[in-house]
């Protein structure tokens, strides 16, 4: 009954190759976008924006980025935190060096800088694969954090070693700094999420995405049919790092306001984003969002239920959170290795046949 092509006639090639070919799917996504842009900013409380929506949007970008690299191109990376730090520190240096430059362009420039760094650390991927590549990107993670801690130039030699975002405005509204209204920051992040998700969807349907997947599925076969591994792998690293740089930039400038590299962009961040795409679904855009939502919401829901509703001590709930997240990761790896996205896909298949499965 749902998600059926029946009756949805395509009369032109443009129609046939549109982003969401199924009418119902298209309408749901349009409704979600309208809701996110026009309704949510006006009904959300400050706490919900700051504690749930902003981390969700920002981590969704990071998860999209890592999914391009790991899910679509098959290159395992543990350097996400380090690349986010590159985005954050680029933003800080650009913000302080060019006070008049619009924050919108600063975020994009930070993404481009991170893309450059990503390509640099992606070079070993041409020679090494799998676990060995993971270890190489782990080195990137530790090296980048160490560098931002060690070299005073990156934090403008500030006494605390922290970087902090000064106030910047877009169309007269403060986006960063303490005076930024939550709904402005939310919309600012949402614009990036929307544009980047759109871009990912179309990249992965096109030539580049197909060459990524060819490399992921079997690199030798891909090379034989004419996919250039150098260009494909490095483009995956560049685009993935571009996304992750943007998410790091937003994470620092819009969400945190001030950051310390070891704490904000440590190895835990790399794992967090990796868990997001594993739980959400490797090689799926919906999975990136689902995984980000899951990892951001789970501690909040657990806290609401156990601490505020049942009244258990907060430390017990915090420990429980570790156990549940760990358990779920193991559970997903065993039962549904393709994550929440695959679960969603199964539901869709069932819905197509419902209510007459035979």
């Amino acid at each position, binding site marked *: 009954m749902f998600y059926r092509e029946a009756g949805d006639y395509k009369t032109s090639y443009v129609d046939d190759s549109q982003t969401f070919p199924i009418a119902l799917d298209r309408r749901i996504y349009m409704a*979600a976008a309208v*809701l*996110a842009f026009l309704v*949510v900013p006006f*009904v*959300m*409380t*400050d*706490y*919900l924006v*700051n*504690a*749930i*929506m902003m*981390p*969700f949007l920002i981590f969704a970008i990071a998860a999209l980025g890592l999914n391009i690299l790991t899910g679509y191109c098959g290159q395992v990376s543990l350097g996400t935190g380090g690349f986010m730090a590159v985005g954050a520190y680029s933003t800080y240096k650009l913000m302080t060096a060019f006070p008049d430059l619009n924050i919108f362009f600063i975020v994009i420039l930070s993404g481009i800088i991170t893309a450059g760094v990503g390509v640099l650390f992606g070079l070993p991927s041409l020679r090494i694969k799998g676990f060995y590549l993971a270890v190489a990107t782990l080195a990137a993670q530790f090296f980048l954090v160490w560098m931002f*801690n060690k070299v005073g130039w990156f934090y403008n030699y*500030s*006494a*605390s*070693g*922290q970087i*902090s975002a*000064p*106030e910047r405005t877009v169309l007269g509204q403060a986006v960063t*700094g*303490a*005076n930024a209204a939550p709904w402005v920051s939310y919309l600012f992040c949402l614009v990036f999420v929307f544009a980047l998700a759109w871009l990912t969807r179309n990249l992965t349907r096109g030539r580049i995405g197909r060459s990524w997947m060819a490399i992921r599925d079997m690199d030798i076969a891909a090379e034989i049919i004419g996919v250039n591994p150098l260009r494909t792998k490095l483009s995956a690293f560049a685009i993935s790092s571009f996304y992750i740089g943007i998410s790091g930039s937003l994470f620092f400038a819009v969400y*945190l*306001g*001030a*950051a*310390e590299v*070891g*704490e*904000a962009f*440590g190895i835990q961040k790399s794992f967090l984003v990796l868990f997001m795409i594993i739980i959400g679904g490797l090689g799926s855009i919906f999975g990136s*969002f*689902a995984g980000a*939502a899951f990892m951001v*919401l789970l501690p*909040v*829901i657990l806290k*609401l239920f156990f601490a*505020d*509703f049942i009244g258990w*001590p*907060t*430390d017990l*709930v*915090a*420990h429980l959170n*570790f156990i549940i997240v760990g358990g779920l990761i193991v559970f997903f790896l065993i039962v549904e290795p393709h994550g929440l996205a695959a679960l969603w896909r199964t539901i869709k298949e069932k819905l197509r046949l419902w209510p007459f499965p035979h």
Partner: protein
Amino acid sequence: MFRFIATASLAASIAVPAFADLTMVSLTYRTGPYAAGGVPFSDGYADYFTMLNERDGGIGGERVELLECEFGYNTERGVACYEETVDQGALVYQPLSTGLTLELIERVQQDEVVLHTMGYGLTAASDGATYPYVFNFPAHYWDGAVAQIAYLKEQNGGSLAGTRIMHMHHNSGYGREPLPTLEALAEIEGFELLSMPIDHPGEDQSAIWPVVEAENPDFILLWGWGVMNRVALESAVEIGYPMDQMMGIWWSAAESDLKPMRDAAHGYTSVTFHAVGDNFAIFNDLNELVYQRDLARGRMNNIGEALYNRGVAAAIYAAEAIRLAQSIHSVSDVTPAMVRDGYEQLTMTAEDFETLGMEGFTPPMEITCTDHGGGGLVAVAQWDSTLRKWQQVTDYYAPNDALIEPQIESASAAFAQSRGITPAGCP
């Protein structure tokens, strides 16, 4: 998915109850690598408010509602905790984390809530004209650094010229905070300052101690927190570094770090801004009204330890500031902005402490609009492993105002400028 989030968020907004009482927030870290420091402080903080509720029915007749929010010493989650609780009318924040303090400074100015960082946080915030909502009495890091050097100078026969002192610190805002003071003192006293940062969380120091062994500094200043302290002290014993040449700040002087080391920790010194020990009159009330009635927040294994007492003291300062705010504004249900007035006019004499049951806990102090840092008096305590107790070995050192005041002025201006804070000024 957005619908799902909207439903979840609706549930969240319903679940947040509204309190008519005095809402206090305890930002705890009972989990993670810093739990050893976080647990006793939060226990003391909670137990004192429980005692007030039991004994006096709260403060000025208003019960205290203490909300706990666990953040695991993680700045992001701490900010989320702050955002969650600030809308519920929380009166005072005491995060016990310098990293979180640096995040919250702008936010509390914006939301007009008091942030009291007792012996941590941003030293420059003692400039009350620029940071009207931030308080860091009774002593701050730079006072601590000055006292450390003053004590070492005495120990070294009145001069530190030609000695080499290692500043072994947590590589964060906390550990870097005393650097300007130590560098200035190195210049004045003629010692060589070696910086030895240890990265979060500080469990792995295998790369640090071979360097210490090779450098063999005359003294080590330990500015650690959480698991880092324990590992550093144990590593020092392992390489045979003399304990009496190691000196901690008040955050690297917890009994829980030292007791398991038995005799090996004997002679370790530390600066402290309050008296040590557990024979304060307040413990009678706490015992009778809280511990005996099974209302204690923790497992009662840390009562009377330095960090527990510090939690109690933090609660006392908050309670007294609220009491003062109630009398200034003649209203018992005070708002966060009123509590700020209470903090700013807070005067604690020796008699006040005696009445409160913490006789001689800290030296008398007075807060003014321009000075949110209090007296800045710091003493030195030494660990006695046979008694398993700290012994205060010196009198309180007076703060080196000539050195620190100009530093605070420039640091405060620099921080305010980088964060876009406009000084409010003092009348």
